Every structure is written in structure tokens, then in C-alpha cells.
């Protein structure tokens, strides 16, 4: 059995004391190197779970361990450092900083994490070369694209640049929050396959969240958040 990269136990979360519980998970585990699909319809506590896993917020009760580190035991600055070092993140859309070039966007994580900077330098001849390598792997290797303003890229191209950025410096965990929902159907699968290839190559664990169940068969394993989140069931029953 591979080591656990994520180990959630008896998790409770509410936004404010006295507010209704939005997330209540007894146990949730992910092994290192896994490609996990989390089915999360809106209102299932999806964004809250991702906030907790990426260390933006902490649990009210219970524990969220990522790479054997209990996130609730870290201060907010330490959690930001932890995220910078170990987690790549892809949003649903508008992933790119508009005033940076494609390559600068990809190199961005190395500005906030010396660890990922060191990783990237170990892999290639310089940060920019590594960024270009990743873009090339994600079918974004037109020299011309790197110079273009990111706002002129198509949505699919933007998502691939975002993926390259999330993978820059080989973080252990990649969290993708509905990264394909703005892509058309045939592009979705090719995007996911590129993501798989890169994650497997780098040994990165992928957590892919979507409400689109048709993507489910592509993954190693799938979890329905609505099923493991007791708070959602309570809310539905009420």
C-alpha cells in the first residue's frame, strides 16, 4: 500500500461559530500518486473541502493531514508556505495573471517557494527552460504563444498554461477545481490525459473535482463528496 498523502479524520467545518456545519467528514484518504476524481455538485461543500486541503482555512474540529503534516497545527503563514511548496492549484477559469507573459505565469510559483524553485532548476537548465518544457508537454510549444498576452489565448490554452504552472517545480499534490468545465467535450478528455501524463511522470497526486460525472471513468478512483459529507446529507434531508 502506498503512503497516504491526504488523511482526513472526523472533520467538521462551519464558517462562523453557531453557523450551520457545511462539512462533516468521518474519514477521507488519498494515497500518494493517485489520480482521484471527486464528484461534487454545487452545494456539496466542494470549495470548502478544497480550501481546507490547500490550507486556506482550517478545520473547526478533527484533523486534515497533508503529507503527514496536520494543517490545523500550522499558523496561517506556515500554511501559505506549505501550499507554495507542495500544492499546485488549477481554477475553473481565469487562471492567469493578465500582466504577466505565458512563461512568467508558469514560473510564478518559483517566486513564492524556494523548494519548487530548486525542484524546477534540478529538472531543467533554468526556470524559463523548465517552464517551456512543461508548456511543450502540454501542447503549448509555439514560440509565438509565449510572447502573446495571456488574455488573447483561448480558454483551452489558458487552462493548459494553468496546468503547466500548477506542475512547475513538481509539487506533491495537484488540486484541480472544475478545470474542464469551460472546455468543450472533446477538449476535456485530451486535457485530462495531458494532466495524467504529467502527474504520473512527476509522481504528483491529482485531485480533480468536477460535477461532470462523464469524466469519472478516466480516473483511478472516484468519490462522491455528497456521500462522504454528512453535513450535506443533513442539509438535503432538512
Amino acid at each position, binding site marked *: 500500500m502506498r503512503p497516504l498523502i491526504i488523511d482526513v479524520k472526523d472533520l467538521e467545518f462551519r464558517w462562523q461559530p453557531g453557523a450551520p456545519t457545511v462539512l462533516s467528514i468521518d474519514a477521507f484518504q488519498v494515497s500518494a500518486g493517485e489520480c482521484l476524481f471527486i464528484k461534487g455538485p454545487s452545494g456539496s461543500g466542494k470549495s470548502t473541502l478544497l480550501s481546507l486541503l490547500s490550507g486556506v482555512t482550517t478545520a473547526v474540529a478533527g484533523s486534515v493531514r497533508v503529507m503527514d503534516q496536520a494543517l490545523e497545527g500550522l499558523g496561517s503563514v506556515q500554511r*501559505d508556505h506549505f501550499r*507554495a511548496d507542495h500544492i499546485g*492549484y488549477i481554477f475553473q477559469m481565469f487562471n492567469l495573471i493578465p500582466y504577466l507573459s505565458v512563461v512568467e505565469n508558469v514560473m510564478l*510559483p518559483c517566486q513564492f517557494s524556494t523548494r519548487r524553485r530548486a525542484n524546477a532548476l534540478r529538472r531543467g537548465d533554468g526556470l524559463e527552460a523548465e517552464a517551456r518544457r512543461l508548456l511543450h508537454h502540454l501542447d503549448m510549444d509555439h514560440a509565438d504563444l509565449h510572447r502573446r498576452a495571456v488574455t488573447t489565448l483561448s480558454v483551452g490554452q489558458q487552462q493548459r498554461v494553468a496546468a503547466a504552472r500548477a506542475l512547475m517545480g513538481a509539487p506533491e499534490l495537484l488540486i484541480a477545481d472544475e478545470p474542464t468545465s469551460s472546455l468543450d467535450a472533446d477538449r476535456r478528455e485530451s486535457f485530462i490525459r495531458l494532466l495524467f501524463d504529467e502527474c504520473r511522470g512527476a509522481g504528483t497526486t491529482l485531485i480533480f473535482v468536477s460535477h461532470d460525472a462523464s469524466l469519472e471513468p478516466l480516473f483511478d478512483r472516484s468519490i462522491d463528496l455528497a456521500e462522504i459529507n454528512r453535513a450535506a446529507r443533513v442539509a438535503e434531508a432538512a
Partner: protein
Amino acid sequence: MAIFSLAWKSLINRRFTALLTVLSIALSVTLLVGVERLRTEARASFANTLSGTDLIVGARSGPVQLLLYSVFRIGDATNNFSWQSYRDIAAMPKVAWTVPISLGDSHRGFRVLGTTPGYFEHYRYARDRQLVIAEGQPFADLYDAVLGAEVAEKLGYRIGDPIVVAHGASDVSFARHDDKPFKVIGILARTGTPVDRTVHVSLEAIEAIHVDWQSGAPIRGLSISAEQARAMDLTPKAITAALVGLKSKIATFHVQRAVNDYAEEPLSAILPGVALSQLWDLIGIAENALLIVSVFVVVVGLIGMLTALLMSLNERRREMAILRSVGARPGHVFALIMGEAGVLTLLGALFGVGLLYLLLLVGQPIVESRFGLFIEIGVLSAHEWKLLATVVGAGFLVGVIPSYRAYRLSLADGLSVRV
């Protein structure tokens, strides 16, 4: 450092609004430092309306009053003082030179000043600058007159033109010395001081035009022609004031006391520099108002920056979330906006000073010829550096507001953007 390169790139991306903000700060800085420079120079120039003269002596009165009539030709002397007293002062061992001044007559609204050629030699203004005769020469003949630049310009006089002096400050026909007309022999270069508005004649000429006058009116039945007057003893009986130069400035207070304690006649001796700054304090309220206005313009400029930064924050919440997702702390977000405010303010101050020097270079000769105010284009003074530092400091302080707001937003938003 990385965060400042981000701030810079972000500003370049929004260069149009950034440039407008920089421009508004730059203009306000130009105004503020410019007003301050003008104020300092105007004050210095005013304090030097009369320089090189150590004491002004007149009949007993207050320093400002004596200054007003002897230097600015405003108002009249309460009393003249005797030629004998003048001779006594001139004979004091510590006195290097004296220039007598006799006032009381006018020409078409401009005051007539009777003096000696020493006036042109010893009168100094604006940091030791000497009077320069632009056209013609100093008076040689009894009925020669040397005009100030403004007199010549306003009345359109040229060398050789005849002028008639009127008795007193008003110009009514029955009180004219029209039997003894003067001839314009010289015109002075512009000085920006009351000298420009003065008609200079010799002290003897003042005496000559008054030989057949008594108590402000011609003596009935007595008429002495201009030529007859030449043959008479034209030593004045009294003068209005005297400019006194000392051999050493250390003796100033000693001589001042000696004049004030002069037993034969009640006299006053004043230090022109001190009296000038007293007078400036009286009229300096306007310059303070100007400074206050320019301070407010700077405040408006900085508020413009505040508005621009705050307005941009909402549309940049996505950007903040992206930065957070790649590992930026809320502190980084704070530093990013702070960096932008800092760059805007610093560029504004830099361009503002640049613009000021450009204006000074272009405007200096114009201001000098039009107003006689010589503005020095030197390096920034310590005071001006302080002003700039205050503006930049205020800019950073104002920058804290949007930075803190961005910090709070990014803390609350985390990786999601709830708009």
C-alpha cells in the same frame, strides 16, 4: 523583490490610469515645490530690496515707516532732518559712506528722489547687484534726471526728453516746478525694486527747484530762473533719509545706538534687513495662503491615487486569488498594492521635480525681466527635500488604505472569489 517586479508589471499593464495618477501627483509636486521655491526666492529678493546698506537714518519714527518712505516710496516722512546732522553722521569714524536721500516731489505719479552720484555706486539689491544704467549716463548737470525702468516704459520717455517735476505727491498744475524743467539723461535697467518707479535727480536740483518756494508754495513776487539758481549755494538745509555703509558690520549696533542717541536732533537708525523682514511678515500672509493651497493640491493628487487603487481592487480579486493559490501570503498582496502606491508616488515626485526644473529653466529669464525676481536654479534645498519626503511619505501612508483592504479581501476570499 519579486513582489515589486509584479507591482511594476501590474502598473505597466494599467499604464493609462497609472500615468494619469503619476501626472496628477507630479503636477501637485511641481506646484508645491514651485510655490515653495518662489516663496523663498521672493522673500530673499524682498529682504534684499536694499542690500549693502547697513543702516537707514531718518527723523525719529518706527522702523517700518522709515523703510516704507525711504525705500518703497510709500507715504511721506513725518519730518526731515538737518544737513548738519547728516554731516555729523557721515563724519563718524566707523562710517564708510553715506548717501543722502531727499523725497517729496513727484512726476506724473512717480516719486522724485534727490540724491548724490554715490547712490548709483552704493545702492545694492537682490544679493549685491548694482544699479545698471541701461541707456545714457548718470546725472552730471544740475537739471539732469535718471529714470527708473518702469517710469521710462510707462511714460514712454527717451534720453533727452524734458520732464517737469511737481511739488508733493499729487500732480496738480499750480504746484509744478515748470520754471525749471529737467532733461532725461539716463534710464536704469529693471531691478524689480521701487527704484524702477523712481525719478532720480541730484540733491542740488531739489534745492534749486525750491529756492523760490516756501511752505509748499511759490513765494509771491519772487522768481528765480533756472539759470539764476545755478549760481546760488545749493547745499540742502535738510534731507529725508540717508543710507549708511559701515567699515565693518560689527559696528552696526554701535553706530545705530549713536544715531538714536544723537543729542542735537531726534533721529532713528534702522537695519534694513530687519525692517524688511518685519514688513514681509506683515504682507507675507498671502504667500502662506498660496502654500496652503498647494498643500491641498497635493492632498487632492494623493486622493486621486487612492481612488484609482481602491477602484482597481474589486476587479483584481481574481488576481489576488491566483496569487494566493501559487503560494502568496496576504502579506504579499499587501506588499503588491503598497509597491504600486510607492512606485506611483515616487514617479510622481520625480516627474514633478523634473517638470519644475524645466519650468524654471524656461521661466527664469521671463520672471527676471518681467518682475525683476531672480530665481536661482540650484539643487534642491534641504527644505525642499523635506517637502518631497513628506509627499512621498504621505503617498505611502495613503497606500496603506488600499493595501490593507486588499489584504483583508485576500484573507477573506482565499482561493475563491465571492463577488
